């Protein structure tokens, strides 16, 4: 048969994951532990655990790194990076004028975007791509004691969680991906408020606030409108699994 021109795609993490090994974990008193790693066989379509061998500490560390692909062992730390633990990362975006776009008729047009002043922001994302944002007052790099304020944006929940909808999220939670995450946030359309309470303290509410912002009524971001969350940066990072 005559050969043909072909086009293949070599997948990375999109490729299917196949069951390849099993680890049996033995626990004793105190911190005593022993683990064995086993090949997987098949009887028909049913997977079987075949005989194994001891899981060495080196193999366990390698496995941990494979499971946390985004966790980097080291590298230069940018000034905006506030916190890094495994695949969880938090960073600061200083106050600045940036473009923001809305897709809601309540702001005067089906789609509307302007360059407007923004407050300082803290973002947090983890390996499961749970993504949060809060505002912080002032232009100084926040510390762990810095109070967090509700980010004044649509599509952000009361706990800081970002409703991503159909936004294409960046891959990876390493320092060099910070700009990609920033672009994903500021490059998406904001459509509707997600908080149950007040998004901002502003006469006329959140819609009026953003209409005024888009109309250029505020040369600088009016920090007085920001709503307190009652939490500090340390609060949301120290309890990162249980809370935010």
């Amino acid at each position, binding site marked *: 048969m005559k050969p043909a021109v*072909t086009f293949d795609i*070599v997948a*990375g993490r999109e490729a299917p994951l196949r069951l390849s090994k099993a680890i049996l974990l033995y626990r004793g008193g105190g911190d005593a532990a022993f683990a064995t790693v086993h090949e997987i066989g098949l009887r028909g379509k049913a997977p079987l655990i075949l005989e194994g061998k001891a899981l060495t500490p080196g193999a366990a560390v390698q496995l941990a790194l494979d499971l946390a692909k985004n966790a980097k062992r080291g590298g230069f730390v940018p000034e905006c990076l506030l916190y890094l633990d495994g695949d969880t990362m938090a960073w600061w975006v200083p106050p600045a004028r940036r473009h923001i776009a809305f897709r809601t008729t309540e702001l005067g047009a089906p789609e509307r975007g302007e360059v407007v002043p923004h407050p300082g922001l803290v973002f947090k994302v983890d390996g499961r791509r749970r993504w949060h944002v809060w505002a912080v007052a002032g232009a100084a790099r926040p510390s762990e004691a810095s109070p967090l304020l509700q980010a004044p944006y649509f599509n952000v929940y009361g706990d800081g969680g970002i409703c991503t909808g159909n936004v294409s999220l960046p891959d990876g939670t390493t320092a060099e991906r910070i700009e990609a995450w920033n672009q994903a946030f500021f490059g998406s359309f904001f459509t509707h408020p997600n908080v149950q309470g007040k998004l901002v303290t502003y006469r006329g509410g959140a819609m009026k606030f953003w209409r005024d912002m888009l109309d250029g009524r505020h040369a600088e971001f009016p920090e007085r409108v920001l709503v307190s969350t009652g939490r500090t940066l340390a609060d949301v990072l120290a309890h990162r699994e249980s809370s935010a």
Partner: protein
Amino acid sequence: MNAAFQLPALSAGIPCEFKPDAGQDQAIALARCLLDAGVIQGAVDARRARDPLRTSRAFLEQWVRERLQGLHCLFPSFRLMLEGASSATSLRQREPGHVCVVWHTDCSAFVVGEALERLEAIHPKLGATVLSVIDRTSAKLIPTFTPWDAMGTAQDYYWYGEQDESVALEEQCGDDPNEREAMREQMVTREKIDAAFPPWATQWPGQRKRLSRRALQAIAGRARSRRVRALVSDLLALEALDLSDEFLPDGDGWFVGYGAVLTWKPDDIAVRIFDDFANDAVQGDYVDWMGEFDFSIEEPDALRRKLGAMEVRFAGMRLLDGLIHELSSGDWHRVPKGMR
């Protein structure tokens, strides 16, 4: 069987395979990018759309096949490497969010000596001109190992950069005449290369005497042989292509990504030189693909521009494929001389 000796089976609810959610965003983003860039066209049925990678692959293959229809002997294979894909090649690191497309082809030998010598006989310097155009253009299309490459590789690879084997023999055999003779017998020598090709074939293409474009146009219009007229027309078209360096492979190591080895006679010394060199090269870092580009899956316009720039490559690949096929097939002795 004693139940105690049975291997433990996992619950039937545990799957042997699953698709991770984490990477699907990239697969979807790729499909979206291909859709916006115009590669994916028309309706995609819902069942296909559930597998964005397979859909992307099918449309990419259709896209490239439409552009490389009717090839005879050189069949490139394209590969899109998604971010994080493990690569067996020495591809350079890409920017985050970028994917890379590379292409390569299996390498085959084509006997072109009879055709090129007949072309020389039909019109002096016509064979040399055909070879020069292949030498000048093929690196940007389907890299072709020509007699000039055979000579250059012999100099670099066997002869320590010299014009012949004298220094290599001295280095390896010293003053022992018997050992020298035995080694000369076995190795690729200048004499063997000179015997395998006419002098103009191994000459640097920049020095090789060739026909002007006007002379080629005259042959394309008035040669008695229809076959010669068609071949020279294709040659003119190939030479006229505006081929930039944009898609050249960029990797570390020896380049071995040739798609064709041109020999003068079947299994002549060019094959041995290429095989020796390629086998040695792949022991270290090597580049075995012939072209590449990358793009951000968030920038479909950039991809559209790259694909647009590839069109001239595809035209060149078709012409080069046709030229090598024509030179290596049929009976050239019967092709008549003269003009109409």
